[in-house]
């Protein structure tokens, strides 16, 4: 029998997180007045011990014993060699993945939900509020709050609340309150419902509600929690990569390539940042955040425009802003490109330490199905982006006859998120080219709107 998994004992769990802010320089975010945001400005929504982590430049930060006790429910997570996937691809590459789907909510999200709940509890907070889209983060925070005896209120975007009833049930099972947003619980929600009672909601509205619910508690015992993008979230997730390094060391391996899907950046950062630390210190490793090609934030600039004149938007010429000689207007250049991405991930791209990759929807689902039919686990839809890159690079290794070691983050299972698979398997998810004969109504939309011209300098 060949070795499939590399396990660590609980004693071998990392005792410190790695803080990449010790090794890179970042511009401070600015407040509405144009001045850097100060810690006290965040105090209405975060406890000071979390704010301290958010701005810390200390390289190694101790993981509290109480946090380790909870993480030990599923950590250390296994490092698994994807032998069946390797065989199916006929690749000489050795493919390993960290499987984060073993956590109670089934994703990497509780790696930060647990410490956030702990620090809030320690600060004297009694309840947390948050927003959630598909429900991964909401269920992770619900789980974490249940472990520390905190109340938890989750504002779930209405459209997802209706699409994913089992996520709501998970949250309720852990004792949280899950409310479709917009709701009547906040003034923000009431105002919107008064205008548009049938609104499907949005993430922006749900965040507004969650923040208002925290800020409006006159007792001061409610705070807000965020599951991605922010520095302290990236910090907490580094336990993934720190474990992976120990596990690979046990079998005498080191990755040539590290891959993670990058939406807000937290599962990518969790696996990759400890290897970024090695790379900064001279180790050779390729590190790829992977994103959807349709919504590029890292691999290309966004859809940017040459206004042509100063008065309006004509002529409006489409282009991507990276890799071309054209320098887009400032409003499109730096910010939009990285909108929604963790600033630390964006900064590492700028510094050339990461090489972003992008794949279309079909490639991601094809890779996800191949992985499910070989390795057995149905991946979370976002994990499929990492898998598309793994499959691509494993095939290239075959073409080149190279025995590369590929490590990626299997950030969660997709058992509660099968709606996307259902649409893919029934042919409803397409890659950019919609067969007009199948979508008569869609054709009416498309016929007068050809793809925009993309400018390239070479």
């Amino acid at each position, binding site marked *: 029998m060949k070795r499939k998994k590399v396990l660590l004992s609980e004693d071998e769990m990392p005792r410190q997180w790695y803080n990449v802010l010790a090794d890179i320089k970042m511009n401070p*975010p*600015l407040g*509405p007045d144009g001045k850097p*945001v100060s810690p006290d*400005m*965040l105090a*209405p*929504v975060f406890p000071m011990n979390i704010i301290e982590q958010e701005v810390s430049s200390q390289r190694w930060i101790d993981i509290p014993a109480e946090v380790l006790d909870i993480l030990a429910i599923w950590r250390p997570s296994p490092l698994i060699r994807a032998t069946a996937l390797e065989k199916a691809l006929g690749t000489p590459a050795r493919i390993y993945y960290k499987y984060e789907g073993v956590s109670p909510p089934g994703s990497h999200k509780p790696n930060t939900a647990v410490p956030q709940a702990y620090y809030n509890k320690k600060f004297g907070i009694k309840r947390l509020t948050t927003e959630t*889209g*598909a*429900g991964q983060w909401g269920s992770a925070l619900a789980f974490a709050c249940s472990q520390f005896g905190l109340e938890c209120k989750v504002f779930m975007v209405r*459209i*997802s609340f209706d699409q*994913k009833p089992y996520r709501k049930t998970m949250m309720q099972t852990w004792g949280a309150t899950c409310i479709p947003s917009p709701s009547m619980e906040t*003034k*923000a929600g009431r*105002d*919107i419902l008064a*205008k*548009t009672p049938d*609104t*499907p909601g*949005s*993430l922006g509205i749900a*965040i*507004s509600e969650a*923040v*208002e619910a925290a*800020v*409006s508690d006159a007792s001061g015992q409610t705070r807000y929690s965020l599951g991605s*993008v922010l520095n302290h979230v990236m910090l907490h997730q580094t336990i993934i990569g720190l474990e992976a390094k120990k596990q690979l060391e046990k079998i005498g391996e080191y990755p040539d390539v590290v891959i993670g899907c990058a*939406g807000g950046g937290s599962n990518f950062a969790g696996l990759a940042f400890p290897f970024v630390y090695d790379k900064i210190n001279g180790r050779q490793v390729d590190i790829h955040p992977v994103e*959807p*090609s*349709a919504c590029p934030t890292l691999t290309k600039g966004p*859809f940017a425009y040459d206004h042509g004149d100063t008065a309006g938007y004509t002529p*409006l010429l*489409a282009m991507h802003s990276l890799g071309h000689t054209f320098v887009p207007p400032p*409003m499109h250049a730096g*910010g*939009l490109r*990285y*909108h929604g991405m963790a*600033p630390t991930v964006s900064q590492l791209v700028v510094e050339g330490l990461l090489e972003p990759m992008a794949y279309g*929807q079909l490639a991601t689902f094809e890779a996800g199905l191949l992985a499910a039919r070989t390795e057995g686990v149905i991946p979370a*839809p*976002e994990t499929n982006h990492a898998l598309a890159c793994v499959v691509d690079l494993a095939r290239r290794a075959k073409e080149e006859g190279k025995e590369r070691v590929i490590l990626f983050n299997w950030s969660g299972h997709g058992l509660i*998120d099968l*709606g*996307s698979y259902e649409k893919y398997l029934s042919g*409803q*998810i397409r890659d*950019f080219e*919609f067969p007009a004969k199948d979508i008569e*109504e*869609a054709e009416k*939309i*498309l016929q007068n709107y*050809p*793809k925009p011209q993309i400018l390239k300098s070479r």
Partner: protein
Amino acid sequence: MASKSNQLARYCPRLGGPVAFSYCLRCEQEQPCFKVVDCWWETFDIVQYLRDHLPGDQFDRVMNAQPRPKISSLVEMIAQARQRIRD
């Protein structure tokens, strides 16, 4: 507009699930999502589509969407929430 556009669907990177194009057009309090152009540009000329179907001020708002760091937008949301509570 929505009746024609709800047959186009794609994975929403913000929500983490499939949504119809019609959702992208109205999810921000009956206005388009700020990422609508980024998400649909490869499929068809979304800019021309928006120009043809949106009032001028809405179109300008989408095209001029200003990205801001999460921390900065949180600070603004705190201020807005406090204002709503006072009102």
